[in-house]
């Protein structure tokens, strides 16, 4: 007798503890082995690109906060920078430094959320709480500077909304001094732990060649060994005046991506230290016309957000409202390569892989 066998179709999400939001994955299983998978997105689609066409340039800034909602400063920066390029605006040096300090702090905050949730997916619940403890401090700093913890809406065309308050400096110094010890704590729980190694080494591997072909960016591509960081490759703001390293991995597995992000947190600490030391006095906002009306034309500008290459492509028709805004969201592109990483893995690897590419659905669906 020949038994008929069939693939098991498992619907993971959109409500599932470890799909990081409302991602839905269709898994075609052979036992617990994944034969094929299909990510289904759009559950958080808010039509931000359409909305942009109905708002003025300034009004769109707070809406960018809601793209990658755990890293609002980089979103602000990428958008503001593109409009500045379109209008050829000068940004004072002090404002540039403030932008760098805040985006780098936000990179740490974003990586902490990633580390916490990723470790929790793999079962280490305690790391999550430790990460959020440190993230709270950063969010406090954000609240102090901008008035909100996550939807900061702080960068303006030609500068920033306000100068850093005086109480900011001692607090950020204190944080920077204590943070390396905290990273050591996370590493004591994970980096050499045999279970962590077993769960992450050689899991969800993607080669450098595939990574480029599938458009991976940020720590995901660096994990595969490509030393490409927009902060170094095409420096924006004042990154060319700062000294930092770009960590890379070799294998392109979950563990390498983990190590890259851990090192990036340390490098960000370094950057903030330097930026604080170098920051000049002066204006925080350049000369900006009262009504933002960029000349007709188009511009694309991108930054290294915590997730990868975050770019804005803006077409202006010379009016107060953008004609077209296209957001090149890193998570959207990174998620595309997920089926490639999952093939042949087990269900347990699915969550390790999702965690390791660090997606935020707000940015994927826009």
């Amino acid at each position, binding site marked *: 007798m020949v038994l008929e066998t069939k693939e098991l179709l498992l619907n993971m999400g959109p409500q599932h*503890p470890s799909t990081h939001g409302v991602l839905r994955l269709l898994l075609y299983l052979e036992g617990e082995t994944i034969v094929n998978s299909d990510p289904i997105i759009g559950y958080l689609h808010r039509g931000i690109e359409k909305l942009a066409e109905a708002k003025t340039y300034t009004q769109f800034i707070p809406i960018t906060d809601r793209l990658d909602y755990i890293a609002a400063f980089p979103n602000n920066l990428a958008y503001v920078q593109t409009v500045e390029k379109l209008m050829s605006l000068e940004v004072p040096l002090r404002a540039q430094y403030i932008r760098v300090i805040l985006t780098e702090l936000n990179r740490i905050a974003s990586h902490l959320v990633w580390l916490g949730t990723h470790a929790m997916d*793999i*079962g280490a619940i*305690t790391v999550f709480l430790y990460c959020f403890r440190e993230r709270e401090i950063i969010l406090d700093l954000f609240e102090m500077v901008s008035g909100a913890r996550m939807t900061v809406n702080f960068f303006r065309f030609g500068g920033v909304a306000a100068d850093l308050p005086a109480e900011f400096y001692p607090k950020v110094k204190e944080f920077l001094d204590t943070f390396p010890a905290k990273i050591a704590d996370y590493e004591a729980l994970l980096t050499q732990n045999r*279970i962590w190694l*077993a769960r992450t080494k050689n899991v969800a591997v993607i080669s450098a060649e595939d990574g480029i072909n599938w458009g991976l960016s940020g720590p995901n591509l660096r994990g595969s060994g490509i030393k490409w960081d927009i902060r170094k490759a095409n420096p924006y703001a004042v990154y060319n005046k700062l000294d930092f390293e770009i960590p890379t991995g070799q294998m392109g597995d979950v563990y390498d991506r983990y190590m890259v992000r851990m090192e990036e947190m340390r490098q960000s600490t370094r950057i903030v230290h330097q930026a604080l030391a170098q920051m000049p006095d002066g204006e925080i906002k350049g000369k900006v016309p009262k009504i933002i009306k960029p000349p007709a034309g188009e511009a694309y500008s991108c930054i290294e957000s915590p997730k990868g290459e975050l770019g804005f492509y803006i077409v202006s028709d010379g009016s107060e409202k953008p004609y077209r805004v296209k957001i090149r969201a890193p998570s959207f592109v990174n998620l595309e390569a997920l089926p490639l990483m999952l093939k042949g893995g087990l269900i347990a690897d699915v969550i390790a892989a999702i965690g390791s590419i660090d997606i935020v659905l707000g940015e994927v669906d826009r």
Partner: protein
Amino acid sequence: MVLVKIIIILGVILLVVAYLTYLERKVIAHLQVRIGPMRVGWHGLLQPIADGLKLLVKEDIIPEKADKWVFILSPIICLVPAFVVYAVIPFSQHFYLANINIGILYIISISALGVYGIVLAGWSSNSKYALLGGFRSAAQMISYEIFLGFSIIGPLMLAGSLNTLKIVEAQSGVWFIIYQPLAFALYLIAGIAETNRIPFDLPEAETELVAGFHTEYSGMKFAFFFLAEYANMMVVSSMAVILFLGGWKGPFLPGIVWFAIKVGAFLFLFIWLRGTLPRYRYDQLMRIGWKIMFPLCLLNIALTGIIYYLFL
């Protein structure tokens, strides 16, 4: 007299199990620089009772496509063995329910029944997540049951008996953990796997399988699984105490207190591990079981036998 004892033991066990959940929440909270339940009663001391009441009055949902009778029965199949085992556990020299010659064998065989409840629960829910959880559980329990059995052969050889009381008496001088460190480590790992705790909590694995075999359960039926898990934890701890740590034996304090302290230490270890470690993958768990633990068990038995033959 026996009935009174049964009621006392059952009542105490239920209470301890309930408060074990409280202890777990508190300890893990403090490991994570949180404070855990605080609102119900002083420092949340009435929390387990509130939880119990909540589960009791909660709507009991049976999925439409579920195999109804199996679905209802499986939590009971899971719970009953977990409690029946306590019959042969000597809490102190005089306080036990039954003194049978094959005590250890009885514990192992009865507690093995619990797996049927889990497998049936996974099957009858008619949900893919539950089914996968059930499968994982079946594979895991069967393989770990075997080396759980093998790992305790060492101390049994030293004691020369399967009777729980006699085993404890045999440790009057030196605890077996001194003679049998390897067996102790193996037993501990098997015990954690047997009770589905982190790092071996694959049948539940809430981040992978939502809740594994009990995904579809709610209300009291869910509570039964919960109670069974914690009761099993206590059984595993009690067995470890009996086999390796000299049972109720200890200076100054009465036997039952010593027994409680030792079991408590084990329970803390369980919780502590949960607060620290990530989770193994299914295939890795099986590999560790069959390829590392099982040969080590055999090695331990052989070594024990040789040394016993040569020197005693």
